[in-house]
């Protein structure tokens, strides 16, 4: 086994807990890539090199690979699909509730954000699936990945494009095409696990961004804090990992400078810097990869101007801590964040222009427990039970602080190597501040991968 091969195996192995091992099954087997892929997409794992095709000539693998998935859902949210209470006429309506609570898919889209006539919003909103309180099938995502590995060069180019058909209410149907990732990654030193990426790429904050895609995420919906940590953005990032082999351990550093930091695009547009100043973010992590126990611990931070307004002195900062433990088929993920944004100029997000960017503070986190049972029952390869508890306390400057919590439970079935079926129930509770509203969700997801 070459040094690079060992590096690849170890890199893939430490990513494994996040994806419940089934990630490997979900991907068609392919030869080891020329460079380690750290978080761009799931990678196959082999304990031995096996047959290695020639790197050049007629037997060489194509440097271009195409992967992707289709995520079809069926969801039903209570009430009108929003978190807005019927008699609430405060302005803005989205400051006094958690608009992200009734999520229906892995993108965090909610059943509805329609405030109804005469009620005013200020852009603290997720994307909407537009189904309101009616049960509906959804084509959540059609995602296509292109990866090109340059022969003879330590360079990989990756792009991920998502097609998102949605019902837009009075605007009718519309399919949004989103370039979620598009970057080149350079690994300049063969002896070091050091990668420099430039382009549009995943967050470096915390751990939940690793599960952004429906074909990877254990369950269906993101956590209540995912809005602060899982957004892609454009810029440059540096990843470095050093292994401490005698201790089965590794230390990682992942830092980035981007347009918008790690907020999701509905809150801060990633495709342009509105202030002219980049946002810095990073995570320092420790990994333990013992034979029976795998653990990842990390601390993250983000600081810079908030990219939903134009004043570079209006800053945002986020701190976080995360942990993932995998042992005996049990997987525990936990994350906590502390968010603060200063007030700025009128607000601009990917959803439009809004009157004011208010000062904002949030604290929250989640704990997720999953148990995966490997099976060999016809097409059924794995059965996973999971549950998550979320809690979030947040307030806009001068507005009523709200506390919400969510209990999520679900079942996931992995069929063959290419199909995942998930069902999930979300019970959203308004603990304090926000009016009580019927916004629980039952949702499902059928993911075909290729």
């Amino acid at each position, binding site marked *: 086994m070459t040094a690079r091969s060992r590096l690849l195996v170890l890199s893939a192995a430490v990513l494994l807990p996040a994806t419940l091992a089934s990630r490997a099954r979900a991907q068609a087997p392919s030869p080891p890539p020329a460079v380690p892929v750290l978080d761009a997409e799931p990678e196959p794992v082999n304990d031995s090199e096996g047959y290695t095709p020639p790197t050049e000539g007629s037997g060489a693998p194509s440097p271009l690979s195409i992967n992707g998935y289709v995520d079809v859902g069926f969801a039903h949210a209570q009430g009108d699909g929003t978190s807005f209470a019927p008699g609430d006429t405060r302005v803005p309506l989205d400051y006094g509730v958690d608009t992200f609570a009734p999520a229906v898919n892995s993108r965090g889209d909610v059943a509805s954000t329609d405030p109804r006539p*005469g009620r005013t919003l200020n852009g603290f909103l997720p994307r909407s699936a537009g189904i309101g309180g009616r049960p509906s099938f959804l084509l959540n995502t059609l995602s296509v990945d292109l990866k090109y590995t340059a022969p003879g060069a330590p360079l990989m180019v990756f792009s991920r494009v998502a097609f998102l058909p949605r019902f837009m209410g009075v605007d009718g149907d519309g399919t949004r095409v989103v370039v979620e990732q598009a970057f080149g990654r350079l690994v300049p030193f063969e002896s070091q696990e050091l990668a420099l990426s430039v382009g549009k790429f995943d967050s470096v904050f915390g751990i939940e961004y690793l599960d952004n895609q429906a074909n990877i995420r254990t369950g269906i919906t993101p956590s209540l804090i995912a809005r602060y940590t899982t957004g892609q953005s454009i810029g440059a990032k540096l990843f470095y990992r050093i292994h401490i082999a005698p201790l089965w351990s590794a230390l990682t550093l992942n830092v980035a400078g*981007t347009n918008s930091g790690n907020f999701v695009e509905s809150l801060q547009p990633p495709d342009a810097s509105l202030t*002219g100043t980049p946002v810095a973010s990073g995570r320092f992590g420790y990994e333990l990869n013992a034979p029976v126990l795998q653990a990842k611990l990390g601390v993250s931070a983000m600081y810079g101007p908030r990219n939903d307004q134009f004043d570079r002195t209006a800053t945002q900062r986020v701190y976080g801590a995360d942990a993932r433990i995998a042992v005996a088929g049990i997987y525990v993920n936990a994350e906590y964040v502390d968010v603060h944004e200063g007030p700025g100029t*009128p607000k601009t997000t990917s959803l439009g222009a809004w009157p004011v960017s208010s000062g904002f503070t949030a604290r929250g986190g989640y704990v997720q427990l999953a148990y995966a049972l490997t099976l060999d029952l016809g097409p059924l390869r794995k059965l996973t039970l999971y549950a998550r508890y979320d809690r979030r306390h947040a307030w806009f400057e*001068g507005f*009523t602080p709200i506390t919400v919590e969510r209990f999520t439970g679900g079942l996931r079935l992995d069929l063959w190597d290419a199909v995942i079926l998930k069902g999930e129930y979300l019970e959203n509770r308004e603990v304090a*501040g926000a009016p009580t509203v019927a916004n629980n969700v039952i949702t499902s997801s059928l993911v075909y991968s290729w």
Partner: protein
Amino acid sequence: MLAVGLAACDDEPRPATPRLWTLFDVQELYAGAAPPEAIATDAGLPGGIKLSTMIDSGGTLFEHPTLTEGYESLYMTTEVWTHFDEIWVQPLYIPVVGWQTGNRTPVMGGSWIFSVGQDSLFYSPFWQVIYVNVPDDTTRETLRSVRDVLDSGYSLHPGPGRTVSLVPAVNAPRGTLPVKGEGWLDGQRQAFLDFGGATIEWDADGVIKETPIYVPVYRTASGELKRLGITTIAASGPQHSNVFSPPFVENQPRYAAYWRVFLVVIPPPKASLPATAPNVTVFAPPGGTGLYEQLMADGFPVVDYAEPIKEAVAADPGVYATYEGRVSLKPWGPNARPECFDDPTLYPADPNKAGCGWLGSQNDIELYFDASQIIRTDVTVTCPVVNSRMEDLIPVGLK
């Protein structure tokens, strides 16, 4: 790390940051080591708004002189916004018993529930009353927050709008108006001043309709705009609405409480006008608050004043301070100034006195000044008119 190393440095203009000052903020500024003289100084209003024209350092509200349809009026200033294109009406929940019987009575003892606090940029003192139909045994402690109201399941009934400012401990300058009270905000007791109903209108999106309030200014020789005295001119209705009077409710005029500040650029007087033609002349007698000297220094033409008025100003400058900077539209007399400038008995104003033909109404401004002389600022204010035509305006009660 290319981008990290390239912290940009550009000079592209950006939208200004919206600001809101309440009386809480003004008191906090007074409490600071070096309180500024004025706020809202970056939004097109020369000199901004002086703290002392809202409250003094002891917490007493200031009654600001203004002219409305030519009448002497007074208002108070409780909130100032800069760089807001619009502000919104917010719900104010008032528990009421006896809804079904028609004998509707608000729960006594300070039971109003405010929905948005003064620290929010979305706070406004303009509320739509939402009556909460509660059982007879309801006390003021029963509902203490919006969540309590909306979770209660009691029926809600939209009512009229009113202007109620959330305030710290403040003093009314005289009498018992505006009405002081206390209600709930997020479960805490909160003091307020109630300026009453019939003071606001809003559109289908809840946006409060603006009414212009005019600040006379002049242009110095160097082109700078400067204020002329303290008196403003408050409009009767929206711009170019040709409204000659505000609505009368309960037999009193009810002016808007939310105003957009406009500048009216006063041109120099024209000595060449015929003796019967209205002229534009700033009242600025020497020896007053210094406006005469300021105008001279700035190269703005001033008229000569007769000895009786000079002596009267010297003897009691406080009486004339209110009038300094006002603009007379009277034709000039044989002494090359309005004759009313020569008669000290016309001051202070009185309904029985002839007056001096002051520029004192929206219609005057829209008639005598073209669009280039009326400049919109980025300042809006809560200024409920508390006195007009020499009588206090009693706040309109709940309907």
